[in-house]
Every structure is written in C-alpha cells, then in structure tokens.
C-alpha cells in the first residue's frame, strides 16, 4: 500500500495541504477557491477538454488544466489572476459559439458564462452534425451540445460515444442511431449530467 503522504502547495497565495494524487482542482475546491469548469465530472476520469479550469503553475510556460494535473510538493499555482480570467473569457466565448439555442431554461453553461462576465460571443455559430433523434424519455438538442463528454462518461452502458473529427465531433448513440432505437435503457445518468441543456428529460405529459 502506498503511504498517505501530504503535499504542501500554494494556490493564489493560500497554503494548501492535500493527499498525494489530489488534482489541482480538488485542492482549489478544498480551500474554497472557485475555478470554473464545464467538462469536469466528479468521480470520473478527467477529460480536460473544456479548458476553462486552466491555471498557471509558477515556472511553467504553458497553462495546465487543473482537473487533470496532480498537485506536487511546493507548487505555486495561480488560479484566478487577470491573465487567466482573460483567457477563460475567450474560451467561454468559444464554448458559446458552439452552444446554440435550447429549451428548458438557463443551463449550467449559460450560468457560468454569466458568472465569468461573458455576455455574448464574438465568434460565429458553429455548424453541427444533426442528431438522428431522441427518445420518448429524452430530448436531444445537438445545437446545444458543447462536446464536454460528460454524458459519454456517465453512460455506464456505453451507448453514448463521441464520433467524428474536428468541428464534426458529435455525440452518437450506438454509433449513430436515434436514441429510441438504441440500446439505451433510460437510466437518466446522462440527463442529469448534461451542462448544456442538450440532453433533457421530457415531461411526463409532453405537449405534442
């Protein structure tokens, strides 16, 4: 058994002591430093694709994603400096360029954009691969999808996968069926984790 060693690091000037193997995001959460995130799914392997949780480590040139970077002894981390905030706002604009209209009220993406002070995006709406359709239980609005892969990771049956390359990256059910014709059993795991309102539960008595 590995020994449970403690690691000391500094985040935004705040001394933090965490167990070995803790990510920078978990360490920041532990001391209440708010690092924005969209693709993070607690308890699942990080995908580090939304890039909103980027932080700067002193002495390193590139920014790193806090959700996938493990804390190391003596690290000095900047998690909310002005440069980071500026970068995150541009990344959020890119997210919004992909995040189209959807029903069901404001979603996590929109609430976070508001929090980051991003009211609108300078970038053009992105084209997308239309979804072959949802099911009786779930609405699929591919216009809203931001490709965070949360649903892909939440789906224990492996029904949801990501297909396509580059801007054509999109979700597929059983490699390209409508959800109603797939092996989905409607457990609801994907519906509760979608941050973009792209996968939503239909009402019990849906209007036609």
């Amino acid at each position, binding site marked *: 058994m590995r020994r449970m060693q403690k690691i000391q690091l500094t985040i935004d000037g705040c001394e933090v002591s965490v167990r070995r193997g803790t990510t920078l995001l978990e360490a920041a959460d532990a001391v209440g430093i708010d690092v924005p995130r969209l693709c993070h799914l607690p308890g699942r392997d990080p995908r580090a694709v939304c890039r909103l949780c980027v932080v700067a480590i002193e002495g390193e040139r590139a920014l790193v994603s806090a959700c996938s970077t493990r804390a190391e002894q003596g690290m000095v981390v900047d998690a909310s400096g002005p440069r980071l905030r500026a*970068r995150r706002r541009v990344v959020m604009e890119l997210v919004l360029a992909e995040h189209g209209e959807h029903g069901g009220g404001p979603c996590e993406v929109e609430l976070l954009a508001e929090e980051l002070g991003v009211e609108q995006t300078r970038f053009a709406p992105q084209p997308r691969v239309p979804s072959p359709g949802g099911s009786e239980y779930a609405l699929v609005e591919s216009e809203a999808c931001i*490709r965070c892969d949360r649903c892909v990771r939440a789906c224990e049956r492996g029904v949801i996968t990501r297909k396509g390359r580059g801007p054509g*990256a999109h979700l597929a059910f*059983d490699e390209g069926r409508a959800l109603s014709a797939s092996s989905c059993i409607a457990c*609801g795991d994907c519906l509760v*984790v979608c941050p973009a309102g792209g996968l939503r539960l239909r009402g019990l008595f849906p209007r036609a």
Partner: protein
Amino acid sequence: MASSTRTWTTAFTRQLAGARALRAHLGARWSVVSLLIPLAVFGAIRFGPRAGMVLLLSVFFCAGLGIAARALSGQSWRYLNAGSLITGLLLGLTLSADTPLSLILLGAAVAEVAGKHRSQKLGTNPFNPAALGRAAVAVVELSTPAAAVDPDVVSSASPLFVAAGGTPAPELLDMLAGTTPGAIGETSAALLAMTGITLVTLVAVKREATLGMLGTVIVLVLVLPASSAIHGHAPWVLDPVVYLLGGPIFLYAFFFATDPATTPNTRLGGLIFGAGAGALGVLGRLYTTIPGPEMWAILLMNPLAPTLDRWLGTARSFAPAPGAAAEEGVRSFYGDVPPEESARPPGLVVQGIDNLVPPGEVPFGVLGRVMTESRQDVVERVRESGLRGCGGARFPAAMKWDAVLAQKKPRVLVVNGQEGEPDSFKDRVLMERRPELVIEGAAIAAHVIEANEIHVVHHPGDSSVRSALDKAISGLAETHPELAERFVLVEGSGLYVCGEESALLAFLEGERGEPRERPPHPTESGLRGRPTLVHNVETLAWLPLLLSVRDARAPELPRLISVSGAVGRPGVYSVPRDVSLSELVETAGGGLGDGASKPGLLAFAVGGPTGELLPASGDSTLVGELPGTGTLRVVSSSSCPVAEALNAARFAAKETCGRCTPCRVGSRELERMWSELAKGHAPEATLSAIEELSDTMTETSACGLGRDAPRRALSVLKSFPEVVTRHLEDEEHECDACRRSN
C-alpha cells in the same frame, strides 16, 4: 401578501435549483441512494438497533459482493458502485428487523450474484436484483415453521395481513407516521410518498410504471367484490386508502417499478408493466395467502419487459448503426489522391544523404559492436553526443531513454515514420533510400532499452517504403535474428495529429487517434500501458553514424532539410548547420527556373505547417536554427502572406482532432477570420480578435497541435504588418493569391 408569495416562490425556485445542482453532482443513481437513506434512517429509529443492523449488513454484503464481482471481471473497482448500494438498501428495507444474518447474506448473494450480470453492467439483468434477493429470503422464511420466529419482535406482517387473533383496522395517522408493523422500510406512508415523489419528479426517467401500478391498485380495489374468497389478508384491504398507505405498495411502485434496467423501454410499455404488477399484487392480496404479493408481482412482470419492448418496437440489445465501422478513413495530405498513388511528389532531389552512412562500415556492423558494450555506456555516449529528437520537439534522446529504462519491462519501441506534416518528406526518403540505417538505429535503441516489440509506423499506402523496410529487416535477420523478429511494420493513419506521440499510440491501440492527457508520459505508460520509447525515423537513422566513432557530436552533424515550393530542384538536402537559408535556396535552384518570368522570393515558410513565415529579403537564418522537422518551403512573390496565413489556419482547422474546445472551435474561427481578411471584408477589430484568439489557443489548448496552430498566422501579423493592413476593409484590394486561396 403578494410580496410574501413572491418570496416563497423565489425560495422554492432556489431550492429546486439547488436540488438540480446536487442531482447533477451526484448523478442519477447516487441521487436514488440519497433518497433511500432517509427511509433507512427512519426504519432504524422505528424498529430499533436490530433493524439498523439488518440494513447495514444488507448494504455491506451487497457492496462487498458488487466490488468483488467488478474486480473479478477485470474492471476498475476504485469507485464504489451506486447500484450495489441501491440494491443493498432496497433489500434491507423490504426485510423485517428480525431477519437472521444468514438470510441477509443469502438475499444479498442472490441479489448481487444471481441477480446481476458478472460485469455488474447496468441493464444486463432480467430481474430486479433487490426483489430477487428478497424473494429468496421469502422462500426460506415460508418453508421454515412459524414457531421459529421470535414472538417478541415488533416488525412483522403489515396491517394488510391478518395476524393470529386478529388486529384492529389501522389508524390513518399510524399508517402515515409508520407506527404500524411491517418490513423496515415500508411502514411510513408519509415518508415514502415524500421521497417517492421527489424521485419521480427529479430523478427517475421511467415514471409510467409507477403511475400504472398505483392507478390499477386504486381501481381494482374499488371494483373487485368483497368475496368470501378473501382469506389470509385482512378484509380492510378493500379500502384503497388502507391498501395504499398501510402496505408496501409505495415502496414497490416508487423504488422498484422505476428501475430502468428491468422495466420496458417505452412509455406505453411502462404503463402496461405497472398495470400488470398492480393487478397481480391486488389479486395476490385478495385471493391468496402469499405474503408480499407486490414483490412477486414485480418479479413476474420483469421478464415480460423485453417482450413488451419487442411488441412496441424498441431494440434492447446493442447493435451499431449500419456503416458505423467505416469511420474516418485514411487521409492523405496530398489531397484527395488515393493513398496508393500518393507515395511522394515526383522528381525529388536527394543530396548528401549518403553522408549518414558511417564510412567503412558493413551493414549492422555498428549494431554488432554496440551489443558488446554495456547498455549504460551506450546511453552515456548518446547523451554526450547531444542527439535530439528530429520529429519536431527536439527533446534530448538520452533523457527519453533514461525515462523508459527507469520503468519495468516489457518495454516497447515505436518508430514514428508517419510524417503527416506538409512540407516534410525526409523520413520517407530515408526509409526508402537508406532503410538499413533506420532499421539498424531502431535495433540499437531496442537493444539498449530491451524492447521486445518494435513498431515501425509509415505513411499509409506507401508500398515502396514498406518493401524497402522489409528488405532491410531481412538483412538484419541474417546477423541478428532475435532482434529482427521483434519488428512489426504498421500502416499509420496519415493524420497530422497522429504525429503526436500519445495520439500515435492511441491509434496503434486501435482507438481514435487523439492525444491523451499527460502525465503519464508514454515513457511511463505508453502502448497498452507499457513503457514506450517513441522516436522519429531520422533520430534513429543518425545513431549508427554517431556510435560508429568515439566522441561524435550531434550538433556538428549536417541537418536533413526538406526543401520545397518555388525552387527548381525540390528535395531532401543534407546541409551543414552554418549554411544560411538563402544559400540553401540558391543550391536548390532558388526562384522558379527560367529567366524573364522568374518571380522574386517573398518568404521562407519554415517549421512545417505551424512554423513562422520569414521575410526572404535580408533573412540571415542559418540551417541549424530551423525549428521542428527542418522544412523549408520557398514562397515566391506571386503569393501573399495573408494567403499563407489563411492556408496555415485552414490546415489547422482540417487537422484538429476536435477534442478540446480552444482548438476545435478556435482553429475554425481563425480560418474564418483570415478568410474574411483575405477577401478584404474584415473590420479592424478582426486583427485584435485574431491576436486574442491566437494567444488563447496557444496557452489553453490541450496538446501541441492546438498550441502551435496559430503560430504561422501570428508571424504574418508580426512580419508583414503593412500587407495585412492593406487587406483590411479594402473592397478594391486585388490580391490574386488570396483569391486563389479563398
């Protein structure tokens, strides 16, 4: 008054948003666990520590068996499975407080082992696991004489069951509060209704079976006649209020009939399922003496769910959509040419490449001598030579060797000869013209790091490279058969992103060719988790020469430069490092051939598709300073820097794997903005947007492709500002090169 209503509404909305956030954080199944916990706590308080013990043991056994099953089927058991906790809690809640330890273990074993697939994968079981486990306990209880039951225990049959000697009809308040007898979790109708309604409004997706079950019960209890056939169950079961509140129906309707795995996959199917279960339960109560008929009703309906799905036309088994297997095909950077014909641009000049061959050596002679030295000595010689990777990143080779050697065997060597980078073709030329150097270098590296697999990846469809490599491996087999048999030739994907080490390894494993998160680095955990050394073809090809003599220094070696573009003799040139680019262009027949129409030189595009664009006039860059893989494309003055930037942006937009947001959306947006600029349609604000987006991509992208993608375009902004300004909102701007590129 109105304001107080608004306050309440706001408070409620906030609570609901909080509940939704909590639900997203927990996920669907952990939310179910959180709803079952209040029931368990109430049961433990109502029926005492013994009931608490039953619940704890049930959960403990189920969780343990679930973890064991997952570990045995080779899955990660790091994360406690919420499914096992739900099963354990539901089983415990349906037991009575006096259930002996052996029966709890039996129930848990039946639920977790017999009731679920070996892999514990959701939705592979025909029966509700908790109901199946409870049924096993019921069978044993029924076959045991009633005398064995301890008469002192409080929890026993529900008020719907006639106790010996007769019990009075239950009071409404008792039923709501749960002070009636029954199983641990079924007595408090109020608590069950609260958690159950929360479940169906916020968490559960399949809610039709619950409606069907409750509705059918109410109707049937009202409709069916009170007959003398009613025996065993109390006469007041015919009161729907007592039936609903006094018995276990809420527990089953809310928590068992919403199980996604064992109920039908359509709304109509769910209604039928629920109606069937409700009807069977009522019939059981009215006409049999079997205890817990609702549990049996659920179990009887479970196997009908697939049948209902078939009738109502929903597939349940996994079947990939037609044509799904033929995903992204092989792509060639030469455009739409079929791969077989795209081997390389015709008429390449190859100059000085023979300088790589160690003078006076027989093939594989250096390898033979290296094998007599100690491995550590060879690593030290490579370190002292200062050899760096020639695939673009120029990482010191010996540091990679150290990193791999620090890991346990078996180790793997991957020779990256895919060369998905436009403007570069030296690796292909090397593999075709001097394959024995590549193979010898690979054999040396494999010997030193003790790799028992060597994968040589070449560009797809490149048959001449493949046969040359094959011949060289046969040559190696004559002197070192044990090394030769470790070689495998692999056709690469041809995608630019697969030049990135981790993406190449993902491709070799048969997955999407996309970069993986680091750490772990490939040197720690690479191909199929084995420590893997990935080297570019050229890096390895230099090894025989470097190791053939003592004290050879890599920085003194010439560089292999792929020269293309506006030159008379494009090709691979072996060039000393102190030669300037202008001299090299001269050697390669700078400018395009014949006198009069010879256009002037505009710029040098170096470093593949993501390097800078250097103005040709007054350039004093030396060959030794070329970044990346050593490419030089000569741009004539008939082209335009803006068109060059647009082409680079377009390349990035085409080659992005689409995994992370800055690269996927950003490269497309860069392409769009450069395209507008090239058309003369862009407002001044575009320039600052380009710069801001470029910096963001450089700093936040997940891998090197996205970080480097904006570099060429940025160098155009820096080195050709007046050309860029001319393109700004100038409808009259005539730029042939830009028009061609757009």
